[in-house]
């Protein structure tokens, strides 16, 4: 029987905070952690607990902080937490954009003036066509996301449009999606288009039955620094986890409270680990 391979831990470069658990105001059909508005299976995090984790990460020389969920802007203290994080490290927030209006965009712009570090805002859009997008992300999602992108760009905040490959049906390869979204943003007058494309993972609402797994044999001689779980840890409901895709899953939990306790190898046990390995993707911006 093949044993489950492990990824060694090298150093903490990236801290993810799943600040609203799986609580989201949308319910996208492909969501990796099945987030939604009702009965989120992972709870939101307490503000003071998040600050403690960020302070601990700082002592280890963390390089980047990411806020995710669910929808992070649902957290009542999100601006306070972003401001706190931005005093420690460059910070990214992943959002569906539905809660970014002019007032919120102004507040985010103000944060960037109070820190030497960059604030990155990832806005999820899955198609340039509103109908196709909303079939995946819900009615009205596209219009609100595009409004957010426009408002942020107008304030020099340079959002990163983040799309999954769910609508990619042609065999032309990844290049097609980058070009498609980049040209679309340029056509809207977004003169500094930034795009990130993410593969579909067999997890959450896209979990299948079975699925292939990684083996020690397959990973022999592999450079584990290519896997984000060698330098990333996630603070989420229930403890510290190996990566944002597996956050909340029992087998991916590495520690209960202390970040330092999570600095140990993690098991590459899930079919989603195959996707990471095959695509070389990272959940980070770059």
């Amino acid at each position: 029987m093949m044993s489950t391979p492990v990824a060694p831990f090298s150093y903490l470069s990236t801290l993810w905070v799943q600040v609203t658990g799986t609580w989201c105001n949308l319910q996208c059909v492909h969501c990796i952690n099945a987030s939604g508005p009702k009965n989120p299976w992972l709870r939101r995090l307490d503000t003071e607990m998040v600050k403690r984790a960020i302070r601990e990460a700082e002592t280890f020389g963390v390089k980047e902080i990411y806020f995710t969920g669910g929808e992070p802007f649902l957290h009542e203290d999100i601006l306070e937490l972003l401001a706190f994080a931005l005093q420690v490290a460059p910070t990214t927030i992943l959002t569906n954009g539905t809660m970014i209006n002019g007032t919120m965009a102004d507040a985010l712009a103000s944060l960037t003036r109070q820190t030497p570090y960059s604030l990155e805002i990832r806005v999820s859009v899955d198609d340039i066509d509103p109908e196709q997008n909303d079939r995946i992300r819900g009615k009205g999602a596209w219009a609100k996301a595009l409004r957010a992108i426009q408002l942020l760009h107008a304030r020099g905040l340079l959002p990163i449009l983040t799309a999954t490959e769910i609508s990619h049906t042609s065999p032309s390869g990844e290049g097609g999606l980058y070009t498609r979204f980049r040209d679309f943003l340029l056509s809207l007058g977004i003169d500094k288009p930034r795009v990130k494309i993410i593969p579909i993972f067999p997890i959450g609402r896209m979990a299948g039955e079975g699925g292939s797994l990684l083996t020690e044999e397959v990973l022999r001689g592999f450079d584990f620094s290519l896997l984000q779980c060698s330098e990333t840890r996630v603070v989420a409901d229930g403890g510290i986890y190996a990566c944002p895709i597996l956050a909340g899953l029992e087998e991916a939990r590495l520690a209960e409270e202390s970040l330092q306790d999570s600095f140990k190898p993690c098991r590459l046990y899930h079919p989603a680990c195959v996707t990471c390995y095959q695509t070389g993707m990272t959940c980070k911006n770059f």
Partner: protein
Amino acid sequence: MQATKEYRRIAVFGGIYNNALALEATLEDACKRDVEAVFCLGDMGGFGPHPDRVFPLLKAARVLAIQGNYDESLALGKGDCGCGYTDPRDNFFARVSYEYTFRKTSLGNKAWLGRLPKQRRIRLGSLQVLMCHGSPRTINEFLWESSTPNGLVQKFLRDGGMDVILCTHTGMKWQRRLPEGKHLVNVGVIGRPENDGQTNVWYTILTAGDDLQVEFVPVHYDHERLALEMEQEGLPPEFIATIRTGWWTTCMEILPAKERGRGRY
């Protein structure tokens, strides 16, 4: 702590990117600045024309160099520059640049690149200085001003027992002063402008003292002649536009928001 050579005043520059004209101008300028040595933090190739023109200049001036990711890739015969782009447009331009440099760099010069140390340690007065290409831990790690937390700099200094870290790789100069006389200085590059709409490039002079003196020096060179050489070599118009205008046009996915915001594209 192993014995390291002590200097009072040095010149340090980053990526040359095949820009022999800027290199010549930089060395000429450094000669007039009363420096004891000239250091290069790696990435001799990429982007510009005629890679082999760089090496005789470096050797004649006895420049003390370290290996950048580009140099490492060329020496090992790797298929790409090791910058790690994911955007296919960025990858396309990175590949064009790398394949040109690979094809036009002699075997002898590739071997020379392979023999370069990855890092150097010196002293500037009483300060322990580490020279690296990307970061102290990884040759191709980007340390931008807006993406390098103070906590990380302190960790690097602590882990290495250093007072000063010098790096390049990003293409933009900056410096961070920390308490107790500690510094991180990204010395910038001389291969191409730093996305500021100016055609000059930059190098750095460091002088020992009670507090380290860091001076960023602009270098004006015949950029129009470089642009013509690049055209003659059939290099992409996007690269040539950068030389002529001072604005980056490609491989910008890795720019953080603040740095991307200051550019034109």
